[in-house]
C-alpha cells in the first residue's frame, strides 16, 4: 500500500471508502474534491476552508463545524449540530438534519454561510443565528411540520426560509415571520436552489414548488441590537 500526505501531494480528487465512524475527515481541507463512502464519523469537514466534500450516505454529528469556505454535500441525512458556527461556504443535505442545525451561523462581508436541508430539521434550527441563510425544503414531508421546537430562538440576524405555510411550533415572539414574495423567491432562493439541485441531480422546480415563509429577528425588539448592529 502506498502512503501519501493528501494535503501536500496535491491530489485533486480523493475517494475515501469503507468509512466507519472515523472522525475529522476533511477537517481544514483547503482545496480539491473528496468523495466519501460509508458512514464518516463526527466533525466531518469541520473547519473546511475550500474544496468540496461529497458524502454518499449519512453524516454523524458536528459536520461542517466552524466551516469557513467550500462545499459539503451530504446525500443522506446529517446528525446533530450540523454547521455549528459556520462562517462561510455551502452545506447541502439531501435528507434530514438532526437537532441544532445551523446554530450561530454567521456572515461577514463577502462571506455568507448557506445551509440547505432537503428533508426536515430537528429542534433549535438556527438558534442564535447571526447571519447567512438557512433553507429547509421538507421534500417528502408535505403537510407535516418540517422543523421541531424552538426554531430560530435567540437569532439576531440572517434568515431562515422554510418551504411550508405552517408557522413553526412555539415560535418566539422576538421573531417575525413573513410570507416570501415571488420576487424574493426568484432573487434569493432560486440561485441557491438551482445550485443545490444540480449538485444532487434533482429538479430545482420541485424544490421551489409551493410557498415559503421566512423567519427573521424582529428589529423592533431590543435584543436584536445586543450583539451586532443590523
Amino acid at each position, binding site marked *: 500500500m502506498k502512503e501519501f500526505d493528501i494535503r501536500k501531494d496535491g491530489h485533486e480528487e480523493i475517494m475515501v471508502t469503507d*468509512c*466507519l*465512524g472515523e*472522525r475529522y475527515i476533511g477537517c481544514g481541507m483547503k482545496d480539491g474534491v473528496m468523495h466519501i463512502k*460509508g*458512514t464518516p*464519523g*463526527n466533525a466531518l469537514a469541520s473547519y473546511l476552508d475550500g474544496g468540496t466534500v461529497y458524502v454518499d450516505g*449519512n453524516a*454523524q*454529528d458536528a459536520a461542517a463545524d466552524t466551516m469557513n469556505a467550500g462545499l459539503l454535500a451530504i446525500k443522506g*441525512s446529517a*446528525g*446533530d449540530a450540523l454547521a455549528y458556527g459556520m462562517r462561510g461556504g455551502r452545506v447541502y443535505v439531501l435528507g434530514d438534519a*438532526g*437537532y441544532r442545525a445551523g446554530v450561530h451561523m454567521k456572515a461577514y462581508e463577502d462571506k455568507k454561510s448557506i445551509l440547505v436541508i432537503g428533508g426536515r430539521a*430537528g*429542534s*433549535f434550527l438556527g438558534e442564535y443565528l447571526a447571519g447567512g441563510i438557512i433553507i429547509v425544503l421538507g421534500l417528502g414531508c408535505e403537510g407535516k411540520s418540517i422543523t*421541531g*421546537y424552538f426554531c430560530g430562538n435567540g437569532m439576531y440576524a440572517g434568515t431562515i426560509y422554510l418551504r411550508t405555510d405552517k408557522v413553526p*411550533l*412555539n415560535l418566539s415572539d422576538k421573531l417575525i415571520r413573513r410570507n416570501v414574495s415571488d420576487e424574493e423567491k426568484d432573487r434569493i432562493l432560486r440561485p441557491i436552489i438551482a445550485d443545490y439541485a444540480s449538485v444532487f441531480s434533482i429538479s430545482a422546480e420541485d424544490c421551489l414548488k409551493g410557498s415559503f415563509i421566512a423567519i427573521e429577528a424582529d428589529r423592533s425588539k431590543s435584543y436584536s441590537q445586543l450583539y451586532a448592529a443590523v
Partner: protein
Amino acid sequence: MKKEGEVRISSGCAISGIFCRDGRRITGEAIKKSIAVMHNRSNGLGGGFAAYGIYPQYKDYFALHIFYESQAAREETERFLDKRFDIINLSKIPVRQTPKISDAPLIWRYFITPLPHLLQDSQLDEDEYTSRATIRINDSIGGAYVVSCGKDMGVFKAVGYPEDVADFYRIEEYEGYSWTAHGRYPTNTPGWWAGSHPFSLLDLTVVHNGEISSYDANRRAVEMYGYSCNLLTDTEVITYILDYLTRKQGLSLKECSEVIAAPFWTTISIKDEEERKRLSYLRKMFSSFLITGPFSILVGFRGGMMALNDRLKLRSLVAAEKGNTVYFSSEEAAIRVIEEEPDRIWAPRGGEAMIVTLDKEAEL
C-alpha cells in the same frame, strides 16, 4: 508528558444496544464489535455490558453478580445471604486474563431465592425482599458491591475499554436476546470497578452517556424511599428513579420518560387539553424526579429495552431496525458495523422514548 490543558482528549461516553424482538439469543460478539467502533468516545476508565436471557437454566432464581475487595467482605456477604436466601449455586465468574484489565476485585456469581418462611414473615414480594437485601449489602458491608441481581440477566463491567472488558468476561460465551454496552469517560467521579456502567437493580439496567445536573436533588428524593446511592456516580440515581416509578408507583416506562425527560411547559401548553392535563400531572406529581442536563440512556429490563434522550437532545442517539432486531447507539457507525443495511435508521427526538419489547410469540 503533556499536562492537563496541553492535550485535548476528545471523548464522551458511548452506548450501544441490541434487542432481538423474537427472543432469539445471540452471543456477546456483536455488541462487543459495535461498542468497539466508538473506542475513542471512552478513555479506558470503564466499560460494561448487560445481557438478558443468559441464564435459562436458572431463570427462576435471582442471579447476583458481586464484586469483593477482600475475602473478608465475601465471607461476611455470604453469611448475610445464607441467612436470608437459599443459595442454589455459587461460583467465581470465569474471566480471561488480559494485560489490559488489571486490579480486578473478586468476582462472584450466586443464584439465590428468598427463604420461604422469611419471605412470608416479611410481608414483601420477592422482588422487594431481594432488592432490600442488595441495597443493604452495598450500604453496609464494606468492600462488597452487588453489580446485578435480576433474574436470567447479568451485568459484566470493569475498568478498561469496553472491548477489553468483553474479552475479560468472555462475553462471547453468553447468549442473550438483549444486550446493552457502555464505554466510559468519567468526568466528575473516579473510574472504578463498581462505578462502571451498567447500573442495575433487579432486572433493570441503565447505561448512560451524559451528565445529570439535577443529581443531588434526585438523590435526595430517591433516598427518601429507601434507596441508597453508594457508587459515586450520577447514573446510579437514574436506575433507582426508574425502579421506584415503575415498581412502586406503577408507572409505565413511557410515563417514566415523561417524568424524567418532561417536556417544557411551553411544549405542554400547545398540546390538546387531555394531553396537557396528563403531562402537567406527571410533571407536578413527580417533580423531584425530573432529570436535567444532557443524557442519552438505554434501559434494559426483562423482555424489553428503552432508549431515551434528554428533552433537548444534548447527546446523540441513533436507532435502527432490521427484521426482528432493533439497534440503538451513540453513533450510526456502531450500528452499521454489525448491520450494514438496516431496514430503517433514524434519530429519535429529545424526550421521545423508544420502547421495544419481545413479540408475543417469543418465549422467555
